[in-house]
């Protein structure tokens, strides 16, 4: 198997891809093959790709005959982000194949993809959340400036999704956190969902 180096934006993405790799290729991702560059207190998400540890890791992997896969968030504008990342590629003279979450064509991020790959049996949980968001939108608090409320981020939605499905004990609560999730748990997630077809195809295409 050609050496894979998968570069993602953060710890949450890393956990997802560790599970997804195992699901697709039926083996554990080799140690050090899924990395996220930069440090915890760095901001500017996609700019992390310019960090020395990421650039050196990509160069070295290419030199040993491996393949670099950069899987970052599309955020507000997929095509704009693609251009920005390819510009970094050209600036540093590195090689990689790019995929932008959630599906390489829409705006969004990891959580937008996760939302689409829940176990369909649990749809009622998401429907309740949608109702909750709708109700929040209607609320006005006269003593607050502005009187309208901020709708919780998608991350919160995913946290809540898992919390409702897991138990109340401390060890159960731990499983909600990004680093402890198990995306191969079919009670919660469907890694064969149709929504993942572009990602599946991308990873299979580059895996030898």
């Amino acid at each position: 198997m050609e050496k894979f180096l998968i570069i993602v934006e953060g710890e949450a993405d890393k956990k997802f891809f560790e599970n997804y790799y195992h699901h697709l290729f039926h083996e554990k991702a080799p140690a050090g093959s899924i990395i996220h560059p930069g440090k915890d207190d760095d901001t500017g998400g996609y700019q992390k790709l310019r960090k020395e540890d990421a650039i050196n890791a990509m160069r070295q992997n290419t030199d040993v005959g491996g393949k670099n896969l950069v899987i970052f968030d599309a955020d507000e504008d997929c095509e704009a982000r693609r251009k920005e990342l390819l510009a970094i590629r050209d600036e540093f003279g590195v090689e990689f194949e790019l995929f932008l979450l959630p599906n390489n064509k829409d705006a969004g991020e990891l959580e937008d993809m996760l939302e689409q790959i829940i176990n369909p049996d649990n749809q009622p949980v998401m429907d309740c959340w949608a109702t909750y968001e709708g109700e929040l939108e209607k609320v006005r608090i006269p003593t607050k400036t502005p009187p309208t409320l901020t709708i919780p981020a998608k991350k919160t939605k995913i946290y809540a999704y898992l919390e409702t499905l897991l138990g109340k004990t401390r060890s159960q609560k731990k499983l909600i956190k990004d680093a402890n999730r198990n995306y191969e748990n079919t009670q919660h997630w469907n890694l064969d969902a149709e929504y993942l077809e572009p990602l599946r195809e991308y990873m299979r295409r580059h895996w030898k």
Partner: protein
Amino acid sequence: MLFDVTEGEKTDSFRSFLTFNQAGIISNRKLAEGYVEKDFVGLITADLLAGNLVNDLSELFKRKQKDLIVERLAMFNKSIYTIDILNNDVYIGFEGLNELLPLGMTGDGLRRYLNIVAASANPMTNIILIDEIDNGLHYSAYKKLWEAIFALATTTNKQVFVTTHSKETLHCLNEMLGDHPEYQQEMRLYTIAKTLNNGHQAYKYTYEGLSGACENDVELRGMA
């Protein structure tokens, strides 16, 4: 061996000879005429006993800088209060012992640490080479050793070249530099790998890359 040295417009050539016999032993050496070596290099190989301890310490004691070494030794082992050279051997003074102990009777770790610290403090050298720095040392000593090397090399204006295969050693370097921002720009890390497509390559890291790699557990030691 032929060395061509260019400085600005001026180029000089120096021819030196080193001959090896069939047994691989140097049988003849001839230094180029007119070549004046201005660099004084200290070498500490991977061997646990390697170093030029008596020489390094003598240069320091001559300049009334024994305290510098004792201070560093005390950081390694709190009960050390003095060091001396007697009959060309090095002796260490430990609290609670009536006699100074010969260095050979103390631990290998202390010996290795002292060899490196003394080499770093010797004001007569301007370059030192340390091979497999982690060899013979307990991991708890790495950070103290790094700090000693940077502090002493700074005051004696040395360039230090170190090799290691130890992940722990690199992580301790990162930690030490985190505590001492004044040294962060004084360090460069080169990962040397023999690559399939591009032969031998060196990948350069500054403190930024080192700390990112340590935080994210990215391999710094070269891929197989």
